[in-house]
């Protein structure tokens, strides 16, 4: 038995296994746990920089360091969300409707307009896989999925992980391809919840279930580690109590609160 969150964490962790340095932005408990799981599996060879963490955040040069570090090629993977995501992997963190007067206004683009270009493996993540998030065309491009030749772009979208499935992104073909469907989903249920077209194989495999070793790590060490930054998340999932210093903000992220437009970076 495992929970959807655990499936997502393990799925994402597997995309990080061969890397050297993964950074995770604010309000990202699942990507954060995935990074920490991958780190645990790597026996420490993977470095994870978790915004908001004291223990897993080595930055000492102020707010600009994450971005400089990415531009130096020292960050291999990062996570971005989107209030809207379209089939060319454009993401919108700003608003629905005409800009600037929006029908729905979200916090803003954060570092997406930059990191999407510079981090080789950007994993898009959304817990609301619905037609209102997965749209034919985003209303505002916080960061484009692809760029014309000649634009300096060592980075870009690698995959899109949702509550329904896992897509890979094909940069040359500028489109997503369905890789696996989570238990209970099939290409039909996914297509009917996706406003853009995507490639799919004839047979869509099920997203592999988490292994026992991973679940054990998650429910133990990784859970305790992520509880430093996301105590309510760790408590809700695993009944793990915060091991916090008094001054650590009692940060928590209830996915219920506007989770679909959680910006996943600082």
């Amino acid at each position, binding site marked *: 038995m495992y929970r959807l969150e655990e499936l997502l964490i393990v799925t994402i962790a597997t995309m990080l296994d061969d890397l050297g340095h993964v950074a995770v932005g604010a309000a990202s408990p699942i990507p954060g746990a995935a990074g920490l799981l991958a780190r645990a599996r790597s026996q420490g060879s993977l470095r994870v920089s978790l915004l908001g963490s004291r223990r897993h955040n080595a930055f000492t040069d*102020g707010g600009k360091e994450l971005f400089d570090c990415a531009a130096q090629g020292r960050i291999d993977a990062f996570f971005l969300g989107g209030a809207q995501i379209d089939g060319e992997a454009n993401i919108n963190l*700003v608003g629905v409707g005409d800009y600037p007067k929006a029908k729905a206004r979200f916090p803003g683009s954060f570092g997406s307009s930059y990191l999407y270009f510079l981090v080789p493996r950007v994993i898009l993540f959304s817990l609301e896989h619905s037609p209102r998030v997965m749209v034919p065309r985003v209303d505002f491009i916080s960061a484009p999925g692809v760029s014309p030749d000649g634009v300096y772009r060592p980075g870009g979208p690698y995959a899109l992980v949702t509550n329904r499935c896992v897509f890979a992104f094909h940069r040359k073909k500028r489109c997503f391809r369905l890789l696996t469907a989570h238990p209970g989903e099939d290409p039909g249920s996914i297509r009917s919840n996706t406003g853009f077209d995507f490639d799919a194989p004839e047979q869509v495999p099920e997203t592999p279930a988490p292994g026992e070793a991973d679940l054990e790590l998650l429910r133990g060490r990784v859970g305790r580690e992520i509880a430093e930054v996301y105590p309510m998340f760790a408590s809700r999932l695993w009944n793990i109590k915060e091991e916090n210093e008094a001054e650590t903000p009692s940060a928590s992220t209830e996915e219920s609160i506007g989770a679909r437009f959680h910006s996943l970076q600082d």
Partner: protein
Amino acid sequence: MAEFLKSVEDLAARIPDGSRIAVPPDYSGCAMAAVRALIRRGARDLDLLGVPQVGFQGDMLIGAGCVAAVETAALTLGEYGAAPRFTAAIKSARLRMRDSTCPAIHAGLQAAEKGIPFMPLRGILGSDVLAHRNDWKTIDNPFGDDDSLVVLPAIRPDVSLFHAALADRAGNVWIGVRRELMLMAHASRQTLVSVEAISDDDLLADDRYASGTIPSLYISAIAQAPRGAWPLGLKGHYAPDAGHLREYVALAATEDGFRKYLDTFVNASESGIDVSA
């Protein structure tokens, strides 16, 4: 050169209407007591800069009618949900919004820090962030072939306002690893700081403190304000007052509720406000 002021009211009095004012995000030392004083004094037409984003103080200043324009990579209350007064102001088109992206704000401040007119930056090309910024340009890379990149004008705020743990008698301010506060001070014409405490020891005499200290050369004025970041937290000192922040979000959902919040928690003099969480 830093002047010591008696209260956050005196700090707020140093911020003229119409100022371009830079503030840090919720986790980096926000001068909330001074922000309340700014609302009490009825500040108007502020041009608010989030470095690189802004939280509760932005929503409060906007709700109180102090803000004409915002430049930020995000206005976010994080886990507490959407920023209600910001969202309402956007919907009624009462704000001049200059959406940015975090590294562009850092880069613009770095240009001001270096006294150069602009800073080039990678990324951003093809985004609607760029499309809506008439003040940003794209140029050919003078060292490249068929390679264009964005250039951002220097950002030189009139005022930076933040809260820190410690100052010394000479007006040096210890910020530890919150180095974006040093960048703000270097880039700004005026830097106003509220602090938890004022030390008799010279912060610059010990490298362990000096390495995380903004020299008084860059500090215009300091006022002591214990728990001056409340209801936000100050890392290493106190946690955010989550209950109060949730109460804010609930009240600020409506204009009436927000007025009630102001009456209860802002419009009383600062000494009338219970900041003990």
